[in-house]
């Protein structure tokens, strides 16, 4: 069996790698470093907490799920037309109903009842529309099966994987190193 470049490279590295204790110490240091390098996590979570106090998140969700009906072909959250004949009253109604305590789903369904399914910004999970959601993942599953089948078919028979003799090892290692550097 041919030893790969990575194996030889790792063995080279292993000769010079720090002791087990040193490695653990380095791991701890890296852990501390990465924890301190992620202030964004705190920042983002603070923002999340602030967002939950008001209706802004639900308002945005609702506006994202609905299309403006003025003909701009944009989501309600995107239509930037001032005093838009469709977006402005729809947004006002959404804000009012969210403040009253209506759920996002109830508001969305009331707009569907008024304008039909074209008001939704994504296909529903019913009837023919469900194919929109299923197909990409179906293709992913089928593709995975095909790739696994191809890989299994292309893999060299095990008999060919005999380990190399000790005498050949340094030469193979050198050639593999050259091969890797060439790439």
């Amino acid at each position, binding site marked *: 069996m041919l030893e790969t470049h990575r194996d030889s490279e790792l063995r080279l590295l292993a000769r010079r790698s720090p002791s087990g204790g040193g490695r653990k110490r380095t791991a701890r240091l890296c852990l501390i470093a990465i924890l301190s390098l992620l202030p964004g996590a705190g920042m983002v979570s603070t923002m999340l907490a602030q967002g939950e106090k008001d209706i802004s998140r639900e308002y945005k969700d609702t506006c994202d799920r609905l299309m403006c009906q003025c003909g701009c072909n944009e989501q309600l959250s995107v239509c930037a037309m001032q005093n838009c004949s469709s977006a402005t009253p729809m947004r006002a109604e959404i804000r009012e109903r969210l403040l009253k305590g209506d759920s996002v789903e109830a508001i969305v369904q009331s707009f569907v009842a008024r304008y039909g*399914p074209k008001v939704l910004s994504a296909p529903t999970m019913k009837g023919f529309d469900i194919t929109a959601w299923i197909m990409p993942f179906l293709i992913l599953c089928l593709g995975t099966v095909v790739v696994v089948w191809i890989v299994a078919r292309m893999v060299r028979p095990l008999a060919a994987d005999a380990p190399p003799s000790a005498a050949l090892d340094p030469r193979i290692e050198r050639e593999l190193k050259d091969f890797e*550097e060439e790439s």
Partner: protein
Amino acid sequence: MSEFGNFCLLLALVLSVYALIAAIVGAVSRQHRVVRSAERAAIAACVSITLATASMLYLLITGDFSVSHVATSTNRDLPIFYKIAALWGAHDGSLLLWVFVTSIFSGAVIYQNRYRYRDMMPWVVAVLMVNLAFFLSLNFFLSNPFNQLVQINADGTMQKFLPADGRGLNPLLQYWAMVIHPPILYLGFIGFVVPFAFAAAALITRQLGDAWIRTTRRWTLLTWLFLGVGLILGAKWAYVVLGWGGYWGWDPVENSSLMPWLIATAFLHSVIIQERKGMLKVWNMILVTLSYLLGVFGTFITRSGVVSSVHTFADSPLGTYFILYMTLVAAASLFLILDRLPYLKTERPLDSVLSRESAFLFNNLILVVACFAVLWGTMFPVLSEWLRGAKITVGPPFFNAVNIPIGMFLLFLTGVGPLFAWRKTSLESLKKAFFWPVVLSAAACVALLAGGMRNFYSVICLTLCVFVTVTIMEEFYRATRIRAKSNGENFLVALVGLTLKNKRRYGGYVVHFGIVLIFIGLTGNAFNREVDQALAVGEEMEIGDYTLKMTDYKEGETPTYLYGMPVLEAYKNGKLLRTMKPEKRFYKTAEQQSTTEVSLYSTPKEDLYTVYIGRSADNRRFEIKAHVNPLVWWIWFGSAVMVFGTFITLLPDRKGAFTTPRLSPGRSAALEESLKAR
């Protein structure tokens, strides 16, 4: 001048058809002189189209409003910079630009290979000319930018019509990124014709070794780069000009640019396996054909009016011709691939399932599935209307729901790929390779959760970003350390030396790092906030840590538009950051279209993004929409890193490497003589 431009277009069409026929005749009859004639005709077509484009630019700059394209896309007050950009500001002119770029690419390829690949080149010329002749026919017969305006008199006679002024360029296009975005995107779309032409020629001549791949690798990479830069510029334009606070809306036209980019990314990866192992030959043929067809599909989407989009040109009669052309190209390619299957056999088997080759195969699968998901979502409304008569919308919620998990998987594979060795990886070495990436990404995950982040995809994405970054750093660190030790160099010199010696590999890692940074930027999208409020002068509004105080309101006029501009002072924790001046413009065109000019305070942490919507209903207040968009800066920075990495991979190799033997003019003449003698 319009007659001259029209004549040049017609001449180019005739020359390209001649070049097509002569190339095929020359190749079949092996008459080298005829092939040379075809090549010269193709270059003459390129010159002719250049002259047509130059005459259109002259008409635009001098403002000859008797020409319909000039009248519909410029006006007298338009600055010269935008008059030039008006070439692609409307459908007819943009098709002329398309034809111009196509002809330049074709001419460059023919000139570059005038002494190389003499068996393949006639067929390369033929394919390039089929492509050019198709677009030229559309441009000349159906969408001619040199058409003149006429008015029909009461007695039925027609006479030339010269309006006093033009309608002007669409105000949305009057932004620097939008001026360079279409040409760069076109370079990306059109460039795929070159690898496709070589692939087709290789199939026809049965020369299915690595030659066509080696010669088109840089073309593909450059095309991929152009398309990527075009996508980023489009995103920047959407962010800064459209004023809705986002940069990617999964619009059908945006999607049609993303699809060939995804397939080309798959091709750039799988082609490495063909070069190294002689595997995936059929797959590469399919990918290169798909890249080209998706480029044509992109312009079909933009020009046919089959889907609604802010970017599409008005409905045009071109759709049917595009469908016919794409069908013929797909059928011909499929026939050639099937017919040449015996020549496309894998040369060597795979050594192990645990190998980088396998990782590349899965990477290809994910990229192709991502492309399919985008295509499916883009065309589903058309399919739904066709099958059920019910038009539905497939918008961002669908694309995000489907593509985010696929993107996460792709990011994971970007990290995993380098951890596998070529040919075979032992479980022991895998354990060692995975140690640091897993430890550090797990630590990052814990840090994010401890910091209170609960958005599932954001946590996963940032964790994977750390994972991929560590694998990339590990790759650089290990190899640099070995090189530094063996050559006695310091670490930095060894790092530069290593990168320059293995430009393709380490440039690729830099591109991957750029992608990681872009993903970090995309993650911020989950935490965007916005506040919409009407302010009077002296009033304040709050968003996050920021306070916006309106201190003034200005109105004014330029030769092309009127504007209103609230002046806002942005404070953070009581400290003045900057004065922000979002604008609303009303253009003095026939449609009196309005645009928003965003005012932005951008930092790596977040963007404070303000838009002036307009006066409130009582006319005493000014409606301001403010957004806080975290981490967007990283998208632009990551894109720059990606471009830098691509440039590294494009740097010339050592003399002689990756080039095919080039015949000297003397040898070429001798060869021509011997071919003539046959």
